[in-house]
């Protein structure tokens, strides 16, 4: 059974190849059959393989499958090897299952689009690349998957390429992640030159021999962090994600909510031994996580594009994951990833349903009262929103976010400060999430939806929403009766610092605090947007309020900052260099040749006596040399 592992990335890749070569000629049914079929089969095999692995090695253990030797250059001999352990198993299952459901959703969502075949080809390629990323045994193969998902992200954001703005958004995403990719590549080079191998296991074992805080560890960890920050849209490289919402909604759901943006989290989790050896960098990870989650939450509160709210929400939630990683709570970060993948993609799919039902309207203040018109959508959306805000008992408690915050509180120096920031973030999360829910689904009805959303779209949406809600169930049972669940499985595979509350009772107290904060957030949202909407308007109308609103709306001005710091000087330099200084070198060669040509052709003046004089002078010189030497 385990040897079927290679099929998991291979099937979507095969789907991509078929669709890339013949997607335009095939009818829509065939295209969706190929795409959804390959992803579905891949998901089924992934679950099968995972079940086998769990049965054979319940606590951990790695299964490796070498496909072929990629190259052999002296000592450098990377092979295409897939390795399966708890971490990659988790990610593989999530990626394939979520990918499959979103593919099903896209059948109906993209049905009217002329680029149907192209869309599914890119989506399949994305799933294949992401699987290669998580299953990779060595950093080189991981980087291949890393670049592949970056490419697909670019292709899919700019899917409707006829609109210039979409292309600009795609380019922005590509360039910002490129900056991180370059740092990541340099980190790979550094690791290779220092340790002589790129196999992740070997690297982690060799790193154990280094002292904590060694320059190599710090440098490599910092570079890898840069790559992760760019890919996961954290401060300061988060500017691309809100604009990436220019792509179709399934793309936002799959790539920019569930999978690609968590590649950075995966990377840090995978290389956690390296990061443990670089405590400064790990602390920076926590700081970045905390800062991002707050900044993004503030910004999400002021957005009125439905998808942009969800984009900032994604940035914020990944900030939570980074915060967890920063304090060494690997398992907590990963379980938050799992739940987030489900409920965030569900939210995006629901947003897609709403947007399509209203004929392409994105502004939430033009929507309203959809509770009656789209009941199923309302229920699934609210369920996912409650999961996001971490509210029991509808979403079973000991939510992943709570796990993170517990670990942060217990982590010692600065832990309490970070915990406070995390709590503030949780409050804001509840606030902006339910602002969105109340404005879109409750209240007056300015626009009426056209038609009923297709079942192809609703079913995956509902399934994902439900999965997000119940995935934390085992944890609740653990708290009550010690049944081990998902979190404990991950914890045993990737051991972090063991932190437990001294007393069971303390844990319940904290839980009560979390629930209270979320409920207060929801209540405040209800008050502001249902009972007293004019209050918000009057707040933003004041001078301070409007300035603050403006700054939060544009994401704390990072775009403006980057344009001033990088864009404007670069354009100025390019204008200065319009004649291309470097080109001058090559042009100079041509100019010198021509100059010499002109000079020499002056000697060909048609005068015979001149030529004879040349011969005579030559004779003089040669004889002179013969005489002198």
């Amino acid at each position: 059974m385990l040897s079927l592992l290679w099929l998991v990335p291979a099937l979507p890749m095969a789907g991509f190849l078929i669709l890339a070569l013949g997607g335009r000629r095939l009818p829509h049914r065939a295209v969706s059959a190929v795409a959804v079929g390959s992803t579905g089969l891949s998901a089924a095999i992934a679950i099968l393989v995972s079940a086998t692995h769990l049965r054979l090695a319940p606590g951990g253990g790695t299964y490796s499958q070498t496909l072929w030797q990629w190259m052999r250059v002296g000592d450098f001999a990377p092979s295409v090897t897939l390795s399966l352990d708890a971490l990659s198993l988790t990610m593989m299952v999530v990626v394939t299952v979520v990918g499959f459901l979103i593919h099903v959703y896209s059948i109906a969502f993209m049905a009217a689009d002329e680029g149907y075949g192209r869309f599914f080809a890119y989506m399949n390629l994305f799933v294949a690349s992401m699987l290669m990323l998580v299953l990779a045994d060595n950093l080189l193969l991981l980087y291949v998957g890393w670049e592949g998902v970056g490419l697909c992200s670019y292709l899919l954001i700019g899917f409707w390429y006829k609109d210039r703005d979409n292309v600009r958004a795609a380019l922005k995403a590509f360039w910002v992640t490129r900056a991180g990719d370059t740092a990541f590549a340099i980190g790979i080079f550094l690791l290779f030159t220092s340790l002589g191998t790129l196999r992740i296991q070997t690297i982690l074992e060799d790193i154990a021999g280094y002292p904590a805080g060694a320059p190599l560890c710090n440098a490599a960890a910092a570079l890898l962090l840069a790559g992760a920050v760019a890919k996961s849209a954290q401060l300061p490289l988060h500017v691309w994600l809100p604009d990436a919402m220019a792509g179709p909604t399934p793309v936002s759901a799959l790539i920019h909510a569930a999978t690609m943006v968590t590649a950075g989290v995966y990377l840090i989790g995978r290389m956690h031994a390296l990061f443990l050896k670089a405590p400064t960098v790990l602390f920076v990870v926590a700081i970045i996580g905390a800062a991002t989650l707050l900044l993004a939450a503030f910004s999400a509160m002021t957005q009125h594009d439905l998808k942009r709210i969800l984009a900032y929400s994604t940035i914020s939630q990944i900030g939570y994951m980074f915060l967890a990683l920063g304090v060494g709570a690997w398992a907590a970060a990963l379980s938050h990833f799992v739940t987030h993948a489900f409920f965030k993609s569900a939210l995006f799919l629901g947003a897609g349903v709403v947007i399509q039902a209203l004929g392409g309207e994105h502004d939430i203040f033009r929507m309203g009262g959809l509770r009656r018109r789209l009941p199923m959508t309302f229920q699934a959306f609210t369920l996912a929103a409650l999961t996001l805000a971490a509210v029991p008992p509808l979403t079973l408690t000991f939510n992943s976010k709570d796990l993170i915050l517990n670990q942060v509180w217990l982590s010692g120096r600065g832990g309490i400060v970070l915990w406070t920031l995390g709590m503030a973030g949780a409050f804001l999360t509840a606030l902006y999430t339910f602002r969105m829910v109340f404005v879109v689904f409750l209240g007056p009805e300015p626009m009426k939806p056209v038609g009923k959303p297709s079942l192809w779209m609703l079913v995956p949406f509902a399934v994902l929403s439900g999965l997000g809600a119940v995935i934390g169930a085992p944890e609740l049972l653990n708290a009550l009766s010690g049944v081990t669940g998902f979190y404990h499985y991950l914890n045993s595979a990737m051991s972090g610092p063991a932190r437990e509350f001294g007393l069971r009772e303390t844990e319940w107290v904290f839980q009560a605090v979390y629930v209270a904060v979320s409920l207060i957030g929801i209540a405040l949202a209800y008050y502001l947007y249902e009972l007293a909407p004019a209050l918000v308007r009057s707040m933003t109308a004041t001078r301070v309020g409007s300035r603050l609103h403006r700054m939060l709306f544009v994401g704390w001005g990072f775009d403006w900052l980057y344009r001033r710091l990088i864009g404007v000087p670069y354009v100025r330099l390019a204008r200065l260099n319009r004649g291309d200084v470097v080109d001058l070198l090559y042009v100079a060669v041509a100019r010198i040749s021509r100059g010499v040509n002109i000079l020499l052709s002056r000697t060909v003046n048609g005068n015979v006596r001149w030529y004879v004089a040349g011969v005579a002078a030559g004779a003089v010189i040669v004889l002179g040399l013969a005489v002198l030497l």
Partner: protein
Amino acid sequence: MTAMVPTAVGLAIAAVLFCTGLVGVLVRRNIIIILLSIEMMFNACGLAFVFAGSYWLQPDGQVMYFFILTVAAAEVSVGLSLVLQMYRQFGSLDVNTVNRMRG
């Protein structure tokens, strides 16, 4: 009784005659005088050969002069007919006017 001349002197005389011819080629603009100067250079070369032949007491020197002379004759005949053509085409014997091959 024939002369007994040091070889350096004899060859030096040939050299001087040769260079005189060279000056003539470089300075004069009349094509006929230029051809004449070339003849002078031929003559100087022949003198050198004959001188060497009489030094080594072999006929080869004179044989060489024989060939040089013949070549000079052929060259002069063709050269002078070309001069005639030049006169007819360009209307002048000034060698500076025949510069269409410039550049």
